[in-house]
């Protein structure tokens, strides 16, 4: 057995030619608290072909990377295995280190002994599994060949989907960097949801001014083209070279467009701000049209929609006088100033109840799921400040109108927000705190007290006292939900989180990228944000896009299918199995003077899934960096007990 094992490793003449360096990370104690790193190193050293075994507290740190680089430079290793965390965190880090030392970055193999070992196993079993995984990685590493990344030209063009604050900001930033930009917006207006606000919290800038400024710059920039009433219908290609099909239609019958009075009034002028709709971006179509755009980067800024309370939720759509905060903001903006008491629609509003966390921070078992079984468990981040700002405005403008705020936690986290909270308190906004299990109850007033409604709550600030607030109006601080982009999610295969917002690759390492290369995200399609935060996210996405587009090319990992022309017989099985349209085709070639069909790979499209390799009857197709013989070597190593022989009693001597 022992001899056979050694022969296994020594096969194919790999040992002696390839020198595998293995670098084991402690990850502080994340790994070494559960895996005996010393033992791992001792065993791995025995693998024929392994010429250097090192360990470090943090392999990803500079001193850790230096260990690898030193071995590459000195020739102590020409293949590298790092045993550390999941490869999505640091594979790129170590490939870069090898490059810096003058090696080919693809002679690298990663063994995940944190997520797959130390975080889920303990003791001797953890150490053994780590050894097996590393042995497998080393076996593969011995068979790795240097590869060259695929370099593709990138079009200096970006498409921004969504003409809200985030989309506008990103478009301006990109255009300033000399990138051609197309904005795809579904409505005839620019400005998005911010247009439905009056003043932006907490600093009180006019939403109209902010939108007009951004939209004005967009409309006047020669490098930005705005396509309104437009949607993405088709999508193909890859980072640097996407082609998207756009459909433009006559504006739909919904809200804003009708309100702006297309039928009765002349259309607004291009660049004109239409209250609660946004900046009109110019001519709309009578007849639908379709066209396509070639673009290098797609930046999604598809935004949010306010939560629509269910009928009967705090009396919504059940009692007159129960409205959402966006509805109320509009009423306030249209209400006449002057007088001590707020008047809406000729009705005096002496008292207002504002209820926080409507459609946010929902708790399973307490809150009712919607018809699709969904709950908005997240905090919508912006509603506390928006509610406080509205409450303060009421108190300051109409001092005889009282405001009661029913809240769970006041989340005035940002700069200037806590001050707004203090200001609201000074303006005698009444705060009542409720438990999610015992939310306020809104009802129709039965007393003849002159108020139409009441809001009743067990107030936790006064030790659970039952408090009834007689009110004329109940305002629900509705949270945010992501806009429905299911068509794009399906088309582009985008990841969506449990909260239904688009899911970035990593919140800290790659916060503005989606897992599809070349598709970025910004603003409230990612998570609730206020306008300033959405602008920061938009610029952050724009700077990443700029880096790709200003280089003029993109480099993709070369892990794509490769056809062995000598073995291929043109069965077409691979083309049938291929998951990515355009990645594999049969082409006519000359084989020994005769015409023959052979499989051909389009590397730019290939996603390296290996479906073709699995079906080829000739074994003529392989994924580079993941070949069948590499897999076999890994399997042999993982099941081999050679490294554990000494513990086992020797039944026979050979």
């Amino acid at each position, binding site marked *: 057995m022992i001899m056979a094992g050694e022969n296994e490793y020594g096969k194919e003449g790999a040992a002696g030619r390839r020198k595998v360096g293995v670098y084991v990370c402690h990850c502080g104690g994340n790994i070494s*608290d559960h895996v005996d790193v010393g033992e791992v190193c001792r065993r791995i050293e025995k693998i024929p072909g392994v010429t250097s075994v090192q360990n470090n507290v943090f392999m990803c740190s500079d001193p850790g990377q230096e260990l690898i680089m030193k071995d590459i430079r000195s020739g102590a290793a020409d293949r590298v295995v790092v045993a550390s965390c999941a490869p999505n965190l640091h594979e790129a880090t170590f490939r870069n280190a090898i490059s810096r030392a003058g090696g080919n970055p693809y002679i690298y193999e990663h063994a995940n002994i944190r997520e797959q070992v130390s975080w889920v196993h303990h003791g001797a079993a953890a150490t053994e599994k780590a050894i097996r995984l590393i042995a497998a990685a080393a076996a593969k590493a011995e068979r790795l060949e240097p590869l060259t990344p695929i370099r593709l030209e990138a079009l200096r063009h970006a498409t921004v989907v969504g003409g809200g604050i985030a989309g506008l900001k990103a478009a301006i930033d990109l255009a300033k960097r000399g990138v051609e930009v197309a904005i795809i917006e579904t409505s005839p207006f620019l400005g998005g949801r911010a247009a439905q606000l009056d003043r932006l919290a907490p600093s009180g800038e006019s939403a109209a001014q902010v939108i007009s*400024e*951004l939209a004005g710059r967009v409309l006047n920039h020669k490098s930005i083209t705005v396509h309104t009433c437009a949607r993405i219908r088709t999508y193909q290609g890859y980072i640097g070279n996407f082609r998207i099909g756009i459909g433009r239609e006559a504006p739909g019958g919904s809200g804003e467009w009708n309100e702006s009075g297309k039928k009765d009034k002349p259309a607004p002028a291009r660049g004109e701000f239409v209250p609660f709709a946004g900046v009109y971006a110019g001519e709309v179509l009578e007849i639908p049209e379709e066209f396509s755009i070639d673009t290098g980067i797609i930046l999604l800024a598809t935004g949010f929609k306010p939560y629509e309370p269910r009928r009967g939720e705090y009396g919504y759509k059940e009692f007159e006088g129960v409205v959402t905060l966006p509805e109320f903001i509009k009423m306030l903006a249209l209400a006449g100033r002057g007088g001590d008491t707020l008047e809406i629609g000729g009705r005096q509003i002496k008292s207002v109840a504002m209820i926080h966390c409507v459609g946010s921070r929902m708790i399973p078992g307490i809150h009712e799921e919607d018809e699709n079984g969904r709950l908005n468990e997240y905090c919508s981040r912006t509603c506390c400040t928006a509610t406080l700002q509205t409450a303060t405005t009421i108190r300051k403008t109409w001092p005889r109108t009282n405001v009661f705020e029913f809240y769970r936690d*006041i989340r005035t*986290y940002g700069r200037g927000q806590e001050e707004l909270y203090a200001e609201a308190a000074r303006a005698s906004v009444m705060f009542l705190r409720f438990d999610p299990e015992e939310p306020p109850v809104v009802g129709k007033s039965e007393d003849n007290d002159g108020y139409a409604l009441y809001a009743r709550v067990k107030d*936790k600030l006064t030790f659970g006292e039952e408090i009834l607030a007689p009110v004329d109006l109940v305002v629900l601080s509705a949270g945010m939900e992501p806009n429905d982009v299911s068509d794009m999610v399906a088309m582009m295969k985008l990841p969506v989180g449990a909260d239904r917002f688009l899911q970035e690759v990593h919140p800290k390492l790659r916060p503005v990228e989606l897992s599809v290369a070349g598709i970025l995200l910004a603003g409230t399609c990612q998570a609730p944000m206020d306008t300033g935060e959405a602008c*920061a996210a938009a610029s952050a996405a724009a700077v990443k896009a700029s880096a790709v587009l200003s280089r003029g090319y993109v480099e993709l990992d070369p892990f794509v299918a490769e056809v062995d022309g000598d073995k291929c017989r043109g069965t077409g099985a691979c083309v049938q199995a291929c998951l990515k349209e355009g990645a594999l085709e049969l082409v006519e070639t000359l084989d020994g003077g005769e015409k023959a069909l052979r499989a051909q790979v389009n590397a730019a499209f290939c996603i390296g899934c290996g479906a073709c390799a699995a079906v080829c009857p000739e074994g003529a197709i392989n994924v580079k960096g993941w070949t069948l013989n590499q897999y076999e070597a890994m399997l042999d190593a993982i099941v081999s007990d050679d490294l554990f022989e000494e513990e086992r009693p020797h039944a026979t001597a050979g």
Partner: protein
Amino acid sequence: MESGVKKFDALVLGGGIAGLEAALNLAELNFSVAVVEKDASIGGKMIRLSKVFPTLDCASCITTPKMAAAAHHNNITLFTYCDLVSLSRNGRGLRAQIRQKPRYVDADKCIGCRQCEYACPVYVSDPEQGDFAARKAVYIPFSNAIPQIALIDTQNCMLCGKCEKVCPTGAVDYLQAPQDFTIESKTAVIATGFDVTPVENKPLYGAGKIPNVITALQMERLLAPHGPYNRVLRPSDGKLPDSVAYIQCAGSRDQTTGIPYCSRVCCMYAIKQAMLLSGSLPLADITIYYIDIRAFGKGYEQFYQNAAAMGIQFVKAKPVIVGSGEGGGVVLRYEAQEDGGRIVTAEHDLVVLSLGLVPGRAPGERAAAPTGPDGFIAVPRPRTAPAVTEVEGVFVAGTACGPKDIVDTIAEAGAAAMEASNYLRE
């Protein structure tokens, strides 16, 4: 001593996560960037943390690759252990006077072998480990510091000469003097970060004098996988704490400390630490005393609800620390708002103060751009240009312009780089 003028496209002040992210973005756009860091290593506060919310990634795992990427980027030059003396206008660009503080070790000669550190006979309390462990008087700041260059702590060095003798490259230089130089750049990004509110200012929390009252940053070190004890122990006697309490808003939302604002990260870091504690001390009771729980970011509310479901106690109260209990515990007193308003006295083995964030400047140090009433860099157009300061061509990112978590800091650093790059193009 003046030693020449160095020219760069962009100057980044601060080598924490905000500065590194901004520098990397600018460098990727092919601009030359100088990063000036006052500490002896880049990495900022983040590299000193244990794990980070809400993903519970280890902080080192996220920070070290960015540190290494910046250190090795052809377009980035790091100037560590340097103070900004002044920043002034130079035509359309800027001129920064920088002072290289003496390490008393020649940075060009030091190879980071630590022989000096091993030879040094002086043990000093190590602030990098929350003052819970010792380091030498000549030392490399921490294991994954960049650069790996030793420095001598002259406050504690007794000039025995041992380090000089063992240094294989003759790098120790007791006579090193500060060196002044000038960086001329076309634009700058301020990423000077934060400090925590001083505990001494708050007698109601014991003013730093009661044993087993520690700061949240100290707790980060206790929880860090490469921390001082390798586990969570009570500092006064090494006891495994059975009960740990957090006092939220200790130094924020508090007029008496002059810090009326919310520090934005404390709720989440306390919840994160509580979660990590329930891993390392499964039997301990963990209580968080709070005013409002502000779990507002992506995934944060769910993180908070998970913590509550795990049995972490959330008590709405603003306690004061009365003193020490008999067994070395910490005695608190508070009004139980959710329990009829009675006054409760409670004792915990260990109390953590969730200190707030203040601008990361030495007392009396001038900020590199005008500040707001809260002391953070002012941002005149926060809605549409959150990274633009009042000074033309000077941008800001991260906690330099207000308390902020890492996720928001990284977004803002991208924004600052974008603004700076567009300024460079204009």
